[in-house]
């Protein structure tokens, strides 16, 4: 009898193994994130004096958009390759599937971010690679992946499929984006933690609340 954690990790392992074979999600997320950063450069004609003001927003738009690309694939590949039934037939709780999928998405998104952050730092000439910024990025990504995995499972059941995910996810993820951009701004401006805004608290609260809500409601997404 496997423990709950083993079952979750088995699902993560399956996603990682299939990703390592195709590498299609990670590579497309990474290229897309870099493209977003480059396109923003043209859109805003970034000048040296305003990079610090614009950079956090650019970073999080890149993370959010590239993240949605990966989140969308999470259930669509299962469905297209006829693996959804197999996944659902696993002798595990639906919440196990949610946690496994969510951790997998989190892993892919953070991997993408680890590659994108240095590129971002170089393009914007900002020394952003601090533990504090990494913490913000991870907390923001957890919240985004928590709701994103749930909504990705919802979107795969619809007629329009991948179109539905951004429409559902972006309005709900507004607090994550606001808090993450603000916290990143504080981190880049090196405002000492005691005087910064309540943003890390917002991120932690969002992460806890929505991982719980998604964990509880996920089983209903797959009921007929």
């Amino acid at each position: 009898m496997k423990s709950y954690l083993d079952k979750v990790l088995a699902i993560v392992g399956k996603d990682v193994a299939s990703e390592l074979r195709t590498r299609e999600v990670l590579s497309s997320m990474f290229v897309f994130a870099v493209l977003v950063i480059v396109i923003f450069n043209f859109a805003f004609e970034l000048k040296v004096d305003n990079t610090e003001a614009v950079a956090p927003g650019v970073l999080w738009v890149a993370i959010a958009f590239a993240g949605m690309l990966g989140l969308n694939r999470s259930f669509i590949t299962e469905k297209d390759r006829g693996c959804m039934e197999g996944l659902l037939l696993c002798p595990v709780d639906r919440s196990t599937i949610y946690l496994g999928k969510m951790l997998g998405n989190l892993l892919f998104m953070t991997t993408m971010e680890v590659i994108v952050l240095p590129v971002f730092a170089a393009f914007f000439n900002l020394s952003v690679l601090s533990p504090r910024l990494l913490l913000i990025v991870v907390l923001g990504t957890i919240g985004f992946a928590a709701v994103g995995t749930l909504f990705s499972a919802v979107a795969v059941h619809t007629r329009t499929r991948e179109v539905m995910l951004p429409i559902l996810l972006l309005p709900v993820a507004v607090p994550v984006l606001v808090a993450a951009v603000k916290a990143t701004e504080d981190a880049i401006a090196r405002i000492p933690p005691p005087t910064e805004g309540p943003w890390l608290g917002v991120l932690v609260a969002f992460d806890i609340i929505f991982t719980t809500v998604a964990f509880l409601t996920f089983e209903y997404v797959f009921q007929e």
Partner: protein
Amino acid sequence: MTVVRWLVPLAMVAALFMAFVFAPTEATMGDVQRIFYFHVPSAWVAFMAFAVVFVASIQWLRTRSQRWDALAVSAAEIGVLFATVALVTGSIWAKPTWGTWWDWDPRLTSTLILWLIYVSYMMLRSVIENPSKRASLSAVVGIVGFVDVPIVFMSIRWWRTIHPVVITGNSMNLDPSMLLTLMVCLAAFTLLFVHLLGMRLALEQQREEVNLLREAILYEE
């Protein structure tokens, strides 16, 4: 329900009378301030409707009774309608008062985000054919969306208060007669909400009956 049907027109006429005749003209803003008596009740109805969506969504997942799903979709539609009215009336008021159609003020921004969440809820409903699947998936979104409301509101408020706040809308002390007018309008709009919800629910039930009849006829052939 029949009592509400007769009360609604009376209450709406009373609300119109209070807003346009009884309430005094605001000293600085003038007559444009009267839109406030419809703006605030619209926002109030929208929030009430979204709370109904939340409760009905939970109830659908628990009981799987079609009535709850019908209630959720009816309330969501009315909520989106009144949130739209609140946003538009707010904009009409803002132009002469603040000099701009839109300001990223916390309440305005939060209402816009809510509006987007429930518009996406309606869009989700329109792209799923299977009725029970549609009910379950939209219930999940209805729950997540409503849980998000306080977090959206708090985060946007902090987001704005860290910036310099140019205009505050809440430094308005209401005259007793204005407050009375507002109360009458709130009551009238609440009745209107109950009435619309009842009508919309009846429509949903009729739609269900028509579907059943159609299926029965097809089956006979």
